[in-house]
């Protein structure tokens, strides 16, 4: 098994839920397929979906919900 990270392509604020009051897209321990949404990045009042580019198992979220992030920062650690 290899490790891989899902990185944010944009700077902004990271959200794990599609909207307040809804459950998170994914939890630690969940499996993802390529193209699955793992969170949203809000940049300048616009929301972008962050997708897994490969299938794998979510080991850990490296960024807290609603935390500021930089472009290129790792969001999720995956086992692939």
């Amino acid at each position, binding site marked *: 098994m290899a490790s891989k990270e899902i990185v944010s392509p*944009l*700077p902004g*604020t990271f959200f794990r839920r599609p909207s307040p009051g809804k459950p998170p897209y994914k939890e630690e321990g969940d499996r993802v397929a390529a193209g699955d949404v793992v969170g949203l990045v809000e940049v300048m*009042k616009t929301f972008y979906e962050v997708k897994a580019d490969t299938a794998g198992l979510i080991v850990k979220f490296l960024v807290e919900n*609603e935390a500021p992030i930089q472009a290129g920062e790792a969001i999720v650690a995956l086992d692939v």
Partner: protein
Amino acid sequence: MSIRTLLIANRGEIAVRIIRAARELGLRTVQVYSAADAQSLAVRLADEAVEIGPPPSAKSYLNIEAILAAARQSGADAIHPGYGFLSENPRFAHAVEQAGLVFVGPHSHTIRLMGNKVAARFAAAKAGVPTVPGSDGVVSESEAKNVIETIGFPIMIKAAAGGGGRGIRVAHDLAEFERLMPMASAEAKAAFGDGELYIEKLVDRARHVEVQVLGDGDNLVHCYERECSMQRRRQKVWEEAPSAILEADRREAICASAVALAKSVGYRGAGTLEYLYDEATGDFFFIEMNTRIQVEHPVTELVTGIDLLREMITIADGASLRLRQEDIAVRGHAIEVRINAEDPANGFLPHPGKVERLHVPGGPGVRFDTLLYAGYTIPPFYDSLLGKLIVWGEDRAHAIARLQRALHELEVAGVKTTKPLHHALAEAEDVRAGKFHTRWLESWLDENAARLQEAGSGLGSRSGAGLAATRTRQEEGQGR
């Protein structure tokens, strides 16, 4: 003036604009700011600055308690809300009034009345102002179907508590309506805390015409119209005054209707009444009133010579309206384009970052209202508006020529902006001929995508592959 210290409860270019107006009136200025805005131009220009919270707007610019505390701490006796954020929040206006401070805007009752789009439609009907055919107030799904039998498709499903282009769904047939109506209600509930909906006929190929008014509660004047038909995702991109196509009798009729409606609610301050204008028939329909200063106010200032921010503050201070209708005339033509931190070559991907170099255009008839300075790092937390390039010319063709000249001079190095879009628009035949409507720009963008990509190529554009903007999440503040 009895106001001595004005607190600015906003950020960005409008905060700078308010500080300028206040200083010209001899007022002391207090700028509130989030932790992300400590280096902002407004903070630098104000006499005093007070930090009110962390970067997210919900915890800073939308935090009523923190703003009132900043006002107490700094000895402010008036608050200007700008646009977006808390500017049309009746609870905020009421809290300011209760705190014994002056709210630079209408009374909280007026904001509450006109902020509910259904109540505003009723007020319009009562004042004899035409509204878009639709339901008499909020409706259930079955009531909506009865209305649709009369007005026909396509229709818009709108949130009673929405506004600024938010909370709108379009249905073209019954199946689509039945699918969207419950979804729209759930979304409105989540976004605005109120799931009530109403129905309006979709006026196809309409133009967006809006009338600026100024009132002191008793007297009311209009400052003619602006046209803002060039929109992308219901956000205005390019605005003009006067409208490129409105004929004199229609102009008089639409402005008179705006005065009648604003007068009927005893309007105080600066406000804007938005209309859809059907060019084919000459019919106009009131859609909503914005009870605040608008982003595009400078085009009105350039053609009338009126300083709208100055008037707002003096009216809030208790002065009667200085202007009579016969004092107000339009001279020449003004155009404003929004310079946003977005990459038009790459799906309008937002592009915060550091401004390495800045050159602001100058010369006759050119104004640039901006939050930028060289070396400034644009934070990712707020909307993408960096500045507004506004030009005045003797006529529309002259204004477009000046716009092209000024765009050529403008340099914002280090971030992607919408400048290339405006260059292309200023050359577009339909734009030059004034032939556009509210959905013109989106189809033009589809047709000209390759050209915009070319204009932006070779400049190290950030890859947007695999990114899809989503608007499902509740957006806060900045609805304008």
